[in-house]
């Protein structure tokens, strides 16, 4: 069966790495690069690759970029949508494995987890591992979904999930918002192991403790004040 698979890659100033991330994927899937008002050479890095390029005029955040990509994919009648990071942390080889499971299992969305295999877990820097465990508990308390991982950006969803998920949280708290909407929309979900490659580049661009606090505040405001 032919599936229209859209890989959504939100990107903000990832000009140094995005070409490498996109190149291998664009031969197999429809890759949608959502440039969140980058001020670097992101567009030049992908301009000769077979991708769809969407650009925000103002920097809104990763959640907003994903929602833009999802609305585009919905308009293009996508069957399967994949959330994929621009910084090369995710493994492209995981995509077909996740899609096959999505088609074979009675689920609407599959979430990547770094805590299902020993070697994936060992690859996480110690400080980040502690932070993720706290985030996992916060997510569980706020959403009622007790997953093994938190804020893993690798997700694969079908059309039902694509229609049900509407992100209002523009910045990093979208990861928790997705879990809330999975619960609210009665979406069927499962986790699969995924390997994240932590490079010096990705760690430098990644979330910090202060970011985690901001996410918590954003989630709280989003839940009770919108």
């Amino acid at each position, binding site marked *: 069966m032919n599936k229209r698979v859209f890989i959504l890659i939100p990107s903000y100033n990832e000009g140094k790495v995005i070409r490498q991330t996109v190149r291998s994927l664009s031969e197999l899937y429809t*890759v949608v690069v959502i440039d969140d008002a980058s001020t670097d050479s992101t567009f030049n890095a992908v301009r000769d690759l077979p991708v769809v390029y969407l650009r925000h005029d103002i920097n809104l955040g990763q959640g907003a970029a994903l929602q833009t990509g999802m609305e585009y994919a919905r308009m293009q009648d996508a069957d399967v949508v994949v959330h994929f990071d621009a910084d090369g942390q995710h493994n492209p080889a995981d995509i077909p494995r996740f899609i096959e499971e999505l088609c074979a299992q009675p689920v609407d969305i599959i979430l990547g987890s770094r805590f299902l295999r020993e070697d994936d877990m060992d690859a996480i820097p110690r400080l980040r591992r502690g932070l993720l465990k706290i985030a996992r508990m916060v997510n569980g308390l706020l959403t009622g979904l007790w997953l093994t991982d938190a804020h893993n950006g690798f997700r694969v969803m079908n059309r039902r999930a694509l229609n049900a998920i509407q992100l209002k949280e*523009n910045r990093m708290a979208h990861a928790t918002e997705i879990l809330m909407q999975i619960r609210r929309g009665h979406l069927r979900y499962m986790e699969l192991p995924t390997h994240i490659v932590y490079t010096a580049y990705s760690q430098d661009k990644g979330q910090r403790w202060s970011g985690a606090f901001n996410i918590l505040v954003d989630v709280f405001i989003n839940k009770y004040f919108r």
Partner: protein
Amino acid sequence: MQVTLTPIQFILTILLVIVAIASLRLLRNRLMYRLVFLAIVLVGILFVAVPYIPYYLAQQLGVGRGVDLVFYLLFTGILLMGVILYRRILEHDLIITQLIRQNAIRNAIDQKGDTSVALKDSKDA
């Protein structure tokens, strides 16, 4: 009752009247906000002109001094205004986000070829 204004009471009353006129001009098409603002300014003028009123109310409410009562009311009012303004900011954020999103999708640059990928035949997703 004859009310005689001291110089500071007179200045404060004039300032409050100016604030009232400015707010009525600014809050166009917002009847509720206009009425609430006008009521606040009128109470303010009354409190300035007749300081016995906040003193009397404070005594009745067990606050103590009239100035304390005014402070508590101001504190609560500022907090409430902050929440209302923050909500408005969130609404504007949402509108801006939608506009930027529509613009991004409308101006999509499509450099790709075929959009489908063959997968193993299995249950519909």
